[in-house]
């Protein structure tokens, strides 16, 4: 099992060193919240800030979300768990950040928990990897020999549903949406500002939380994240009304992997699948 205290220490040591040596100007990691069960995303900018860094099983935040907030060229150190590292890779692919401006602090971890339910969420809402895909410094022992959590296993139940039942399920879930947009705001890949749904020309949908607008917002967002979602589960965790958005994102990710033979955020050499094509793509994917 992951030694959270050890990682926290390493995180502090490395953050302190990087800031002290002037290698980075900000360290994106996790900090104290109003109590222990409520840590916060944290941006340490001075050596004094390092003291506030924490790491525990509730540090679900995908810090890659904050990368685009800093001006281009800012030297940033970022703490990443497995899925988070994929987000960083995806952002590098999309040229939102440059590899050379990042010091990636990898956190291999097992046993992250949902703070609301206390449930372990390694595979259910996140991508099922334990070790970061890309890092410069590893802050703990890589997790090996553990049964790989299968990220798409949770889908079976929904795939097996009759389409009408599935529609009913999603209609009910998506109609809960209050359009607070926490999902897109928590998502490291949703960096559009403005989001299409905020546009008035064209106005894609109503602003009120009603079925048509909710559907347009979510279905389009699923498409915008197709082949880009790195399955960190942050959208679902952020959702105040507990819409299982992760299920839909997982499904789309799975389909994209099957159709285009590429998994999001695994290599900085890749190109996002929906702004790419292969002549030999099969027409079968349209059936």
């Amino acid at each position, binding site marked *: 099992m992951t030694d959270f205290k050890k990682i926290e220490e390493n995180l502090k040591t490395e953050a302190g060193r990087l800031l002290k040596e002037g290698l980075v100007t900000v360290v994106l990691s996790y900090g104290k919240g*109003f109590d222990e069960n409520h840590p916060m995303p944290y941006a340490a900018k001075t050596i004094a800030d390092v003291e506030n860094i924490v790491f525990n099983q509730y540090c679900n935040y995908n810090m890659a979300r904050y990368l685009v907030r800093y001006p281009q060229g800012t030297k940033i150190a970022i703490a990443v768990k497995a899925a988070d590292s994929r987000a960083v890779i995806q952002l590098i692919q999309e040229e939102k950040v440059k590899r050379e401006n990042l010091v990636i602090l990898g956190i291999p971890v097992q046993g992250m928990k949902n703070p609301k339910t206390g449930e372990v969420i390694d595979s259910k809402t996140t991508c099922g990897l334990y070790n970061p895909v890309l890092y410069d410094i590893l802050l703990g022992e890589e997790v090996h020999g553990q049964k790989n959590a299968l990220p798409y296993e949770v889908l079976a139940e929904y795939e097996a549903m009759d389409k009408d039942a599935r529609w009913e399920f999603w209609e009910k879930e998506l109609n809960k949406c209050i359009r*607070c947009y*926490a999902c897109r705001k*928590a998502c490291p890949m949703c960096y559009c500002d403005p989001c299409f749904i905020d546009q008035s020309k064209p106005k894609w949908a*109503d602003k009120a939380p009603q079925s048509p607008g909710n559907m347009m917002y979510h279905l389009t967002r699923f498409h915008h994240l197709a082949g880009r979602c790195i399955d960190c589960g942050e959208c679902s*965790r*952020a959702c105040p009304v507990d819409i299982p958005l992760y299920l839909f994102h997982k499904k789309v990710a799975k389909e994209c992997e099957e159709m285009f033979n590429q998994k999001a955020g695994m290599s900085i050499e890749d190109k996002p699948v929906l702004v790419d094509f292969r002549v030999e793509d099969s027409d079968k994917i349209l059936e």
Partner: protein
Amino acid sequence: MLKKTAIENISQLAAVLMEKGTLLAPVKEVSCHNFAEISDPQKVDLKFYNTLMSPKSAFFPHREDFVKYKVGKPLSEAEHTILNLKPAFLFGVRPCDVKSFEIMDIHFNAAGIIDPYWRARREATTIFGYAYDINQPVDSADFYNTLGIYAADPEGSDIFMVKKDKELLLKSITPKGEKLLAELSALEKASSGDEKYYEDYIKKGKDYKTRFTCVDSEVIAKKIESIFDNTDFWTKMSAACLSCGICTFSCPNCYCFDICDDTLFGKGTRSRVWDACMFTDFTLEASGHNPRTQVYQRLRQKVSHKYSYHVRKYGVISCVGCGRCTRQCPVNIDIYSIIEAALKA
């Protein structure tokens, strides 16, 4: 007047209220409670700490239609929406939330700026306040004590309810409540023991402590005003903020809205829809200029509005310490901590 009913018979009370009008009460959703219009009395569920969304939507719905019109047709043909309301019962509102209605009245129901929709709803509604269960632990996010509100404050309710073991005691507070309570024959008469229990409960409510820091509204208003330009402070406070709209949407005191026109197949509707000062496009001007593009500016606006500008303009803090924004925040931003930090800044 004090009456009572067994909590397990609450659906009977609900059924009676439904006969009299519209009943809004907490119902259980997948992982939370929310106020909803009741169609099945069995659904009323009082086993909640507090609702996810505040009860403000009872008077200020997320979307309020004003005008219906046809594209290409003269304005004179447009129809204004007129509310024809039945009596309504807002059942099971926590004291801090009850307090919020009073603050919201400033904006919608005060002389000079009366919103007919708010007023109509407010007048048609009888409020059943409901004391927090003082035998259960307080949620760590709550801080209504800081705003001078207590767990069992009957003030503002028409009828105030406290829980006594497996029973619910209902006490009329206003004449409107008194009249209604008298009509509710399904309820039992309370005993003198119940009376005492009720009185004690209200008293003990004062000792049921949430987080507390001494906030004088004038002091805090001034303080926040003075640190307006302390960008470092606000940047630090907002470093984690995602600028989503959860805090404002769930807040009982946020009242910002947008006016929207939606058309489909030539039929248009003009409506008022909740907006949130945390959204980037909240302050987007028609010219394309946006005075608040940064997260820190928006978070500063939210806090300043509640704790400073509102005090300056209306003499009262626009916050009741219900803890919703903190509880719901996906990154655990805590307005209480910000106020504490601001006082020290």
